[in-house]
Structures are given as C-alpha cells and as structure tokens.
C-alpha cells in the first residue's frame, strides 16, 4: 500500500489512485494550454476591435503588412512544428542523437521566426513610423504579436535547455523525455495560435476605408 514509488514511474498514471491515466504533468500542460485560448483570444479580439476603427492617425498595421515576408516566416514556424514532432518521435524511439538534432533544428527555426519579427517591428517603426503609441490599432498589433513572440522566445529557451541537458547527459531521461513532449505541446500550441494570427490578422485584416 505505501510501497515505494520508483523514480522511473514518476508522473505515471498513479496506479494506486483513481485517475485519468494521463500523466500529471501532461494533464497540467493541456489544462494550461486550454486557458491560453482565453489569453490570446483577448489579444486577437482587441486587434479586431481597433484595426477596423476609422479615423486614427496613419498608418494602420494592415496598410503596411509585408505579406510575402510574413508568409515566409509563417512557413518557417509551421515547419518548426514538423521538426518538433520529429524530435519527439526520435525520443520515443530512444534515438537520442536524432532527438537532439531535431530539437536544435526546432529552436533554430523558432529563432529565425523571432528574427523575422524583430526585423518586421523595426521596419514598421523606422520605415513607416508606426509606433506603439501611433494609434490603438498599432498598440493592439504590437501587443498581440509581441506576446506571441514572447511565447516563442520562451519556447526556444526551453528547447535549448532540453538540447543542452541531452548533450551533457548523452540523452534524455524518462522525466526529461516527458518534458520534451510537453515542450512539444507548448510549441505546437504557439504554432496554431500563429496560424490564426497569420490568417485573421495579416491576410484578412483590411484598414477601414
């Protein structure tokens, strides 16, 4: 009854409990992610509200989007989901090297995306003079994409830490293997949010007449 819980069993479905059968941490991650919908939902609706209001000082974000550029960086982020899932797959096959490589690739793609965002922001501010304080639409744009970028950046840090741990120890333990899966979930989530942002904020948004 009070037998020892072996460390490798950690976070497993608790055999001595009634439960869902899903590991604690994974369940927690899914719950957290479901609440993130409310977070990004607020930011997106904030943008939708202001991006259509007429009468603000120029420019509106939708007037200065560089769609080809953003398409490319969206593509990069989308592909990072592929590398992420490949890393996870390698980990499940206990292919430590593969997992490490794909982790690194994911982090790299994420960084490229971030660099793209930094470039985009700089261009908007310097070339088009659209600052946070230009108009509410601009404020909303920066807040939304900025928070998304922050999520990506946190993801990159987590990926790199896993990569580092794996390098030092020559692989990931079960516990960290689960961490890899969790980071993966997080990463894909950030990607699906970008799928929405790319379509709704970039492709569909039009400045008011």
């Amino acid at each position: 009854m009070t037998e020892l819980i072996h460390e490798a069993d950690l976070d497993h479905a608790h055999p001595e409990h009634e439960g869902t059968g899903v590991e604690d941490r994974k369940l927690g991650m899914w719950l957290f992610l479901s609440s993130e919908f409310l977070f990004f939902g607020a930011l997106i609706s904030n943008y939708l509200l202001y991006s259509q209001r007429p009468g603000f000082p120029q420019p509106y974000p939708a007037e200065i989007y560089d769609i080809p550029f953003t398409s490319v960086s969206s593509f990069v982020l989308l592909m990072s989901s592929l590398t992420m899932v490949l890393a996870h797959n390698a980990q499940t096959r206990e292919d430590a090297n593969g997992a490490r490589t794909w982790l690194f690739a994911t982090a790299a793609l994420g960084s490229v995306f971030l660099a793209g965002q930094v470039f985009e922001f700089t261009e908007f501010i310097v070339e088009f003079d659209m600052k946070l304080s230009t108009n509410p639409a601009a404020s909303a744009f920066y807040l939304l994409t900025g928070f998304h970028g922050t999520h990506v950046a946190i993801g990159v840090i987590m990926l790199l830490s896993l990569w580092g741990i794996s390098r030092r120890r020559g692989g990931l333990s079960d516990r960290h293997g689960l961490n890899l899966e969790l980071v993966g979930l997080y990463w894909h989530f950030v990607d699906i949010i970008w799928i929405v942002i790319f379509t709704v904020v970039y492709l569909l948004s039009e400045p008011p007449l």
Partner: protein
Amino acid sequence: MTATAERPTTTIFRRPSSTKGLWSWITTVDHKRIGIMYGYAAFTFFIIGGMEALLLRIQLSQANGEFLTAGAYNALFTMHGTTMIFLFVMPASSALMNYLLPLLIGARDVAFPRLNALSWWIFFFGGIFLYSTFIFGTSAAPVGVDGIGGIDGNLAPGGGPGSFNFLADSPDGGWFGYQPNAGPLYSPGTAMDYWALGLQIIGLASLVSSVNFLVTVLNLRAKGMRLLRMPVFAWMTTITSFLLLFSLPIIAVALFMVTFDRQFGSLFFAAQAGGDVILWQHLFWLFGHPEVYILILPAMGIVSEILPTFSRKPLFGYSAVVFAGAAIAFLGFGVWAHHMFASGITPVAQAAFGLATMTIAIPTGIKIFNWLGTMWMGRIRLSTPMLFAIGFVAMFTIGGLSGVTHAVVPSDWQQTDTYYIVAHFHYVIFGGAVFGLFGGLYYWFPKLTGRLMNERLGKVHFWLMLLGFNLTFGPMHWLGLQGMVRRTWKYAPETNLEPWNVAVTIGAFIIAFSILIFMINWFTSRRRGEVSGLDPWDARTIEWMSPNPSPEYNFAVPPVVTSLDHFWHLKYDEDAEGRAVRKEDGDEIVATIDHEQLNPASPIHLPNPSYFPFFFALGLPLMFYGVIYHKQLWGKGLIIVGLIIALAAVIGWAIEPLEEPHGDHDEEQDAIPPSPPAAVLPPSEGETESSDD
C-alpha cells in the same frame, strides 16, 4: 533507505532538509504547511482590509465628515476592495483548499508540490508588492497645461478638508480600476501601476494553483473515490479551479493593456485617441463576474460539508448540489455585462444579460433548498461550525435576492453605483464567503492542531458577528435606495443620510470586536483547547480518517473508498426505517483507524522540500518594480536582476535532484506526530515548464 535513485542525478545542490525553523517554512512543499501560511497571510490581510473599512466608516459616520481627505478616502476604498477580494477571500479559500483537498480525496499531497509552493510564494510576494505602494507609490490628481489646475501647491495629494491624508499616495482608482480614470492621464503617479502589476502577480499565483488542483483532483483520488463520491468541498474546489483557469487569462490581458498604456504609451483605453474605455469594462467583468463565484463556491463547498455532519444526515441531493455548482460556474461566464447596465450598451444586450443573470438564481436556489432539505428532519447540533453554516445560508440568501433585483435591468439603473449594491455584495461576500470560511475554520481546526476551539467563545463570536454584520450592511440597502452613491467621500447633510450611516459604523465596530474574540479563541485554543481525538464531530468524510493534527503524510494507509461519506458508513448502519445506527464496534473502528494511521507500517514517500519556488517567486516582483521604474537606469537593471533570479531558480528547479537520501526514518516513526517520517519521494513532481507565461 530504499529510495536512492538508480540513475545518477546532478547534485549541484543538496535539497534542503530542515524540518523546523524559518528555512523549513521557506522550503516546504507540504500542502498543509502551505495552507497554513496562506491562511495566516490571508487573515492578516483581512485585518488590514478591515481596518481600512473602519477608517472609511469613521469618515462616513458624519455628513460632510472631515476625518479623511478625499485622496485618502479614495485610496482606502480601493485598497479595501482589492485587499478583501484578492488578498483575503481568495487566499483564505486557497488556504482551506490547499490544506484539505488532498485529505478530502485521500492523497498524500497535491500533484505538483513544488508548484504549489511556487503559487504560495508568488501570492505572498504579490501581496507585499501591492502593499509596498503605501511606501513607494505616488498618486496625484492630474495637472494641466502650465501646471495650472490639479492639486494646489500647498496640499499633499488628495487635499481638501480632512485631517488624515497619510494613505493618499496609494492606488485610488477603485477595485475595478475603470478606465480612463485609472489610466495614465487621470491617475498619474505610480500607485495604479502597483495595483495593476500587483494583481498581475497575484493572478499568476492563482492560475498556477488552479492547474495544480485540477490535476490533483483528476489524478490523485484515493482508490474507489469516483468523481461522484468526492466530498462537495473537493468538487467546489475543482469547479473554482476551472473558473480561475478560464477567467484569469482575461484579466491578465486587461492588466497588461493598462500597464502598457501607463508605462509604454499604448492607447488601448485612451479615449482622446480613439481608445474604447468600455472595452476595459467588458474585459474586467468578463473576469470579474466569474471571480465572484470564485469567492463563493469554496464557501458553498464548506457549508455542504458542515450541514450534513451536524444534521447527522447525508447531503440532500448530493449530485444536484454538485451539478448546480457547475451550472453556476458555467452561467457565471455569461452574465458579466450586468455590471454595465448603465454604460449605454444596446437594449438587446441589456435584456439578454439581465435574463442570463436571473437564471443563475435557479441553480443557486437548488443549493439553498437542498441545504434546507439536509437540515430538515435531521438531528441538528448547533455547534459553532453549524451556526456559521446556517448563518451562511440565511445571509447569502438575502444577498442573492438583492442580486436578483439588480438583474431587473431598469431597477438596476436606479440601484447601480449606490450603497444598495454595496449592501448586495457584502451580503453575498461577507454573509456568504466569510461566514462560510469561518465555519470551515472552526470545523477543521482540529485537523490543524488536534484540539477544538472553545465553543462558548465561538458562539459569542457568531452572534456578535451576525448582529454586527446585519447592523453594518442591512441599512446600506436603505441608504442606497435613498440615493447614497458609492465611493463618496462626503455626503451633504441635506440628504438626511446621517443616522443610518452612524448605525453602519457602529455595526462595523461590532464586527471588529467579534473578530477580536475569534482571534483570542484561536490563539488560546491552539495550545489549550480540548483535545479532539480522531473524530470530534462524528464526521462523514475521509479527511477525518487522518489523525489530528494531520501528520505530514496525511494517511499512512490511504483509504479505499466504497461510497460517498465513506467514513460515516464505516461507523454506521441503517435500521429498517432508514435511521442511522452506530455499529457496535464503531468506537473500536475509529480507534483502529487512528492507530493505523499514526503508525505507518512501511516507509512513506513524500516530496522533498525545495529552495527554488521561493527564489523563483522572488524574481517576479523585482522585475515588476523594474517595469514601473523602467525609465530610470536602475529600473532597467532591476528587470534584469529579477529575470536572472527567476531564470536561475528555474534552472535549479529543473535540474534539482528529485530526492536526497535522508537519515533513517524508522527511528522517527514513533515520534509522530508532530515529527513525520523523513520524506523521500514525491508522488509526482512539479514541471519545469511551469515558468512560461
């Protein structure tokens, strides 16, 4: 020690091992100790918030009162509301949920013990951060072109007649911080930044613990404890956690928007630049209304535990009570605009939100009537916890009914922003949540101390508080309908509102006196109260199968649950009529349980203490101080320092060895309680990724 890991672990840090003294509290991950810390902190904030209320009342006991300056008054009601809601009722509920949830479901701890410690420390530092505004914050009335207007040179902020100005430099935008009044233009100074960022921190703490509680409930129930066998308090904790999970991100965004407006020049709520100030209200109340159910549902859970125990009957309509709780939570997401009936939203929206609001009375009514059904034909013992539970039902109903009168939209146009509203929400919050919480404290005090609280003092506390409460908040209904608006520093003598305000003030002091009695009771009973034994109330639920005070491991033998009210059914049979009959060996059974639970037969594995939650939580307020002062170099520096501390703590957290061999605990076994066997392994561990967001 069997628990040594097979896999080499990085041992840069030893895990902390003190079991006594300050460090043991700082590093503890024991849900019970965390609950205790939550409890004391919450109660301290209750006293502070209460004192703020008393100052408000002194000012209002006279027409055109001159006790406080306008600035001090505004700061006090803002801090009173904010404190009571975010720093008292929420953490007090959290205290009981922390302490009891694992016990109620037969677990050793919550799912993520370190994360649990993290929530607590984040909350704690958030509270301190918020209150540090009294020292560092500044607040000033806006100053116009050429420095004309605004505050008079020779007056401190706030100004005007009144002698006490000492708190005026604090947040003064009201607990719902309506824009643009609480924005950069009309509340310059840093005080509202402290408010916004303080709430941000505190919200994060609740978000983390909501995930933790949910996973605990979903994954760590004792064998046989199906969801519909969980005690109602565990259910209400679950539902509350869902509410937190889905409503906190909303306020987080809203607070970020305010912070960006105030600090970085964004224009979300800047009406002069096309920002929409009503957006803030939508976002705030979209959080704020679920929030009020976050305040009340735990108390409803507590009451649902107490009433059956002291009526010696099962809860009437258990599943209806549970589902009603879920229905309240669900509907609670769809009624927020009833706080905005006067804001000029379209008639369609007003009607729709009015109707939606009314529907909440239905599930709430189900609860009330089922509680009455529980008492009906029971064998009612009026012990102190029961008095508070009954007080809850009686007082909450009054508040709920005035709530329904607000849902009648045109009536609300008269009532909104008057003391009638103030009466409503104090009846539901104080008469509801606070009565419930006090009931819970009396009821579960033995779990904490192994002793009972003094009944006589308890009853004096109850009756005084009931009297004081009604004297304070009852006349407010009348005041509101006679036209006394909220948040008013002064009212004119011609309005003839003074006599009632005097009554209210007297009532407030009676409440304060009753609380004093409670405190005396608490601290004397802790040492000298009657020893409780395992089962002082002849209780029904399995938390009472853990010895009093609960040992660190909760249960040496986790119960295998076979029914709702499992513990009761171990002790009682039913006769042909359906009346309870104590089993012949009932006392023996209790004694055996007590003995078994106190003397674990085999090693027990518990989560190890950790330094990192504390340090991680310490990083946050530093960063946020930095945000407030980011224009200065040292502000920027502070952001970086905070980041580094937090990051270092996360890294430490991630690579912290999961266990550290302790001394042989077999020798310590006999010393239980109070000193539990050495902890070894967590039932599961915190996640490293929790630091994102």
